[in-house]
């Protein structure tokens, strides 16, 4: 069982550079061929400062900022029990290659389900760019199965 003492825990902010090669690799992995996601020259020609990060990218910054194994270790849990329950996004501004995004992550709730055989760990995450502008907020529900 995950201790509820972790509710309210805030991880130290981590700043992650958004690399062009990473965005190209991600586009390949997702089968995305749109040129603003894959071709830096086309992105510039479209008036963008660099490749556009796709809508799911904040989740990747969240993982970059906090390795899953380190997260499990804080909770006293193991990856074998973990499933992804929900991922919710709010968007305020785009993220581009070349940006530096600061990720702030906080555990906001731990919920017991089915007499504790299932636990939800909720984290809320804020993403701020190098200009100090909040670009996105996400809410992640990590599901743990205790057998």
């Amino acid at each position: 069982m995950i201790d509820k003492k972790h509710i309210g825990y805030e991880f130290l902010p981590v700043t992650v550079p958004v690399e062009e090669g990473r965005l190209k690799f991600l586009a390949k992995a997702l089968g995305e061929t749109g040129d603003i996601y894959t071709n830096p020259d086309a992105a510039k020609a479209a008036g963008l400062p660099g490749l556009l990060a796709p809508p799911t990218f904040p989740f990747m910054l969240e993982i970059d900022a906090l390795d899953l194994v380190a997260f499990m270790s804080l909770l006293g849990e193991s990856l074998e029990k973990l499933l992804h329950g929900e991922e919710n996004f709010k968007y305020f501004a785009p993220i581009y290659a070349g940006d530096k995004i600061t990720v702030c992550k906080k555990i906001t709730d731990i919920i017991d389900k089915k007499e504790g055989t299932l636990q939800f760990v909720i984290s809320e995450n804020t993403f701020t760019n190098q200009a100090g502008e909040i670009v996105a907020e996400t809410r992640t529900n990590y599901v743990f199965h205790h057998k």
Partner: protein
Amino acid sequence: MKIPSFDSLKVGEEIPALITPPVTRHTLALYCGASGDHNPIHVDIDFAKSSGLDDVIAHGMLSTGYLARMITNWVPQSTLRSWKNRFTAMTHIGDIVTCTGKITEKFEEGGEKLVRLELQTNTPQAQTIIAEAVVALE
């Protein structure tokens, strides 16, 4: 891209679907590296078995990424205001992922004309994501 106008859209209307090729181990290996989600349950069959599964399972966020492609094939990404995804079943090796969406509401808020969509991904066996997105259109 021809951006649909707010006035031209109707509640109940479906947006163009996206159907992927079958998910392969190679798909998951690429996504593991590119996404940074290195959970071995997606790429290491021995680990998956130790977790009580028969085989590796796809990352939920891979299907979310496919849903995002469906949305941004339809409207520019800059129109996307919010998006909620709930993972309802696992995606397995060999599954084709079918992304679909329909308009459930048109409304105005904060000076913007907004369209709410209900989205889902399905494999041949199950619905794997139920999602809701809000886009702003003119």
